[in-house]
C-alpha cells in the first residue's frame, strides 16, 4: 500500500491509476481487462505500468469486442474475481449494452448470482472529440435496475469511489471525466480510504439556491458560485458523486434549506438524471419549493465536433449565473 500515495498533488487521472494499483495489491482477485491497457497502458495511460507489475493475466489486453469482454468479466466476477473493465471511450459502451443491462444487472435479481464488476468509462466533452468520443452515456443506465453508477469530480472522490466500486458486490459503472484527467489536482491522504457509494457531497455550502450536479459540471458550478457571491447570491453546490443509488436525503436536505434548485448536467437534457431528480423533488419536496426547478443541460443533439458548436452545446458558467439570477428574483 506504500507504492502510490504521495504528499504532492496528484491529478484526477493519477488518482484513478493509484486506486487500481492499490486495489490490485490489496486484493489479488482484482484484475483488469480492456483494449490496449497492457503494453500501451490504455488510451489515456490510466493503466500504465500495471502490466509490468502484475503480469498479463491480471492486466489483459482484449480483442476489440466490448460485448465479449464485458460478458467475460461478468463470468469471472461470478467465479469470485473482481474484474475492472476499461472502455476505451465511454461511447463504445453501447456495444456492450446488452451484456450490462440484461446479464450483469439482472443476474442477482433473477437467480441470486452476485456480479462484482466495475466498468470504467472515460466520458464527457470539451476535448474536441465529436459525436463518438464525447458522449455521456450515464442516462441510459440509471433506468436499468441492478446497476450502480458513479461519476467523480475530484481526485479524492475519483480514488475513493473507485476503491468502493471495486469492493462493492454489484456491477458498478464508473464514469471518469476525460476533461478533468489532467486539469484537476489535489493532495490525497497517505492512508487507504474509500468514498462510500450512494453519498452525495456538498462541495460548497450556501443559503439561497441549490445547484445539484456531478462530474465536470461541479467545477462550473463552483466557478459560478464565486461570481454570484459578489452579487449576494449564495449557491450551495451538491455533487451527486453517485447517480445510483441516489442520495435523496442529502438532496432533500439541501432543497429544504434553499427552496430553489438548479439541476445541472452535461448529459443531454431530455431523460438525463436531472429529470429524475426534478421528479423526486416535485413529488417529495413540493411544499418547500419556492420556484420552478431549472435544468441546465445540453440540448437534445449528439455532441458536435466543431469548436463553436461544442461550446454552444456544453453548459457554461454564464448559464448557471443567469439561471441563478432568474431563480433568485423569483
Amino acid at each position, binding site marked *: 500500500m506504500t507504492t502510490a500515495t504521495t504528499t504532492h498533488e496528484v491529478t484526477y487521472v493519477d488518482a484513478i491509476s493509484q486506486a487500481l494499483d492499490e486495489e490490485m495489491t490489496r486484493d489479488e482477485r482484482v484484475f483488469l481487462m480492456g483494449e490496449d491497457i497492457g503494453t500501451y497502458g490504455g488510451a489515456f495511460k490510466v493503466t500504465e505500468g500495471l502490466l509490468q507489475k502484475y503480469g498479463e493475466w491480471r492486466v489483459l489486453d482484449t480483442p476489440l469486442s466490448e460485448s*465479449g*469482454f464485458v460478458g467475460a468479466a461478468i463470468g469471472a466476477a461470478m*467465479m469470485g474475481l473482481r474484474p475492472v473493465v476499461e472502455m476505451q471511450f465511454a461511447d463504445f459502451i453501447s456495444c456492450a449494452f446488452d451484456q450490462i443491462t440484461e446479464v450483469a444487472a439482472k443476474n*442477482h435479481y433473477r437467480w441470486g448470482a452476485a456480479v462484482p464488476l466495475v466498468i470504467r468509462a472515460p466520458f464527457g466533452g470539451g476535448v474536441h472529440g465529436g459525436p463518438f468520443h464525447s458522449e455521456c452515456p450515464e442516462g441510459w443506465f440509471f433506468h436499468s435496475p441492478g446497476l450502480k453508477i458513479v461519476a467523480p469530480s475530484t481526485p479524492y472522490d475519483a480514488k475513493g469511489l473507485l476503491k468502493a466500486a471495486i469492493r462493492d458486490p454489484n456491477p458498478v459503472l464508473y464514469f471518469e471525466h476525460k476533461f478533468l484527467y489532467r486539469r484537476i489536482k489535489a493532495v490525497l491522504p497517505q492512508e487507504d480510504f474509500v468514498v462510500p457509494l450512494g453519498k452525495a457531497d456538498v462541495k460548497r455550502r450556501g443559503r439561497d439556491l441549490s445547484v445539484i450536479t456531478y462530474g465536470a459540471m461541479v467545477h462550473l458550478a463552483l466557478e459560478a458560485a464565486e461570481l454570484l457571491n459578489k452579487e449576494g447570491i449564495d449557491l450551495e453546490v451538491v455533487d451527486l458523486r453517485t447517480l445510483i443509488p441516489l442520495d435523496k436525503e442529502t438532496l432533500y436536505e439541501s432543497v429544504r434549506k434553499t427552496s430553489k434548485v438548479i439541476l445541472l448536467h452535461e448529459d443531454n437534457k431530455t431523460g438525463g438524471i436531472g429529470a429524475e431528480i426534478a421528479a423526486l423533488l416535485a413529488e417529495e419536496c413540493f411544499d418547500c419549493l419556492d420556484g420552478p426547478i431549472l435544468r441546465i443541460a445540453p440540448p437534445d443533439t449528439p455532441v458536435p465536433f466543431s469548436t463553436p458548436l461544442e461550446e454552444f452545446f456544453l453548459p457554461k458558467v454564464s448559464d448557471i449565473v443567469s439561471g441563478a439570477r432568474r431563480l433568485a428574483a423569483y
Partner: protein
Amino acid sequence: MDQATVSNDIPRSDLLNMYWYLRLTRSLEDRITALYRQGRIVGGVYTSHGMEAIAVGYASALQPDDVIAPFHRDMGAFLIRGFTPGEILAQYLGKRTGPTKGKDGNVHMGDLKRGMIGFVSHLADNLPVAAGAALAFKIRREARVAFAGTGDGGTSRGDFHEAMNFAAVRRLPVVYFCTNNQYAYSTPVRCQMAITDVVERAKAYGMPGDIVDGNDVAAVYQASRRAIANARAGNGPTFLEFKTMRMHGHSEHDAAKYVPHELLEEWKAKDPILRAERLLMTLGYADESYFHDVGERVRKEVDAGTEFAEQSPLPEGPETLTGVFASVDEVSA
C-alpha cells in the same frame, strides 16, 4: 459410434446413470408439458424432447466443480447437477421453493453453488460469460472447465463470435457446443447460415471442432470428455456441434407446421432413449424389465416433485422488491 468401442470406454455405471437421467428428463418434461396444457404452468415452455442425450451426455462428462452455462433445452444438466424435479417444477409454477424463488420462470434458473449459470433469454449472451468463468479458472490456475452452448440460431449472434474469438486467443479452458436441431423457431438452418455444418464456424477462430451424433448419449459423452480433457490440460477450447432434431414446436404453443412430416418421422427412429436402450441391451448391461423399472422410478420421482411443487407456497407480492442488489456478506470480502 461403434458400440464395441463404447463398451470398452465408458464404465457400465456411467452408462446406466446416463440412462437414468435420460428417462428422468423425459418424464419431467412430459409432466411440465402436461401441466402447461392444463393451464397450471404459464409462460413459455421449451423442452428437450428427443434431444435429451446432449445435456445428459455432456453433463455426465464434467467434474462437479466444472461450470455449465446451459442451452435452453438442457434439462438433463440441471438434474445431473442436483436440481430436484420438485425444485424444477416449483420454478415452472412460480413457487418460492424454486431456484429463482419465483423471480424468473422455466429454464431461466441457475445456482452458482451447483455450477449452473442461469440462462439468459438473449441467445448467446452466456457464451462470453462462460469464457469469463474459464478465464477465472485460468487466472487462478484451477483445473476447472466451463461448458457452454447455444442453438444453431444462437450461433448467428455477435456474442457467439466475440466469445469464441476471445476464448481461442486466450486458450481458455472452455468447451463450446451448438445444439443443431435444424430449426431456430421456424427458421431452418439454411436460412440461418450459408454453411451446412455449424462446426465450420470454429475455423474462423482457429478452434478445433467436431461433429457429434447428438442423439447418441455415448457419443456425446465421449466427444465431450475429449474436449473437456483438452481444455483441462491447457490446450484451449473446442467447439462441438451436436446434430439432432427438434421433435416438436419451438415452445408448447407452436404446432411447427413448417417442419416437414418426413423429417420428424426420420428422426423419431433415432430417439435417444431407444438408442440408449439398444446399446445397453447389446452390451448386456440391462434388459426390458430394467427399463420398465427405471420408468416406474422416474415417474415416482416426478410425482413426488409435482406434489412438492404444488404444495409449495407462492412468493408474496412484496418479495418483488428483494434481491436487486447483492449485499456485501453474500460474497467473500
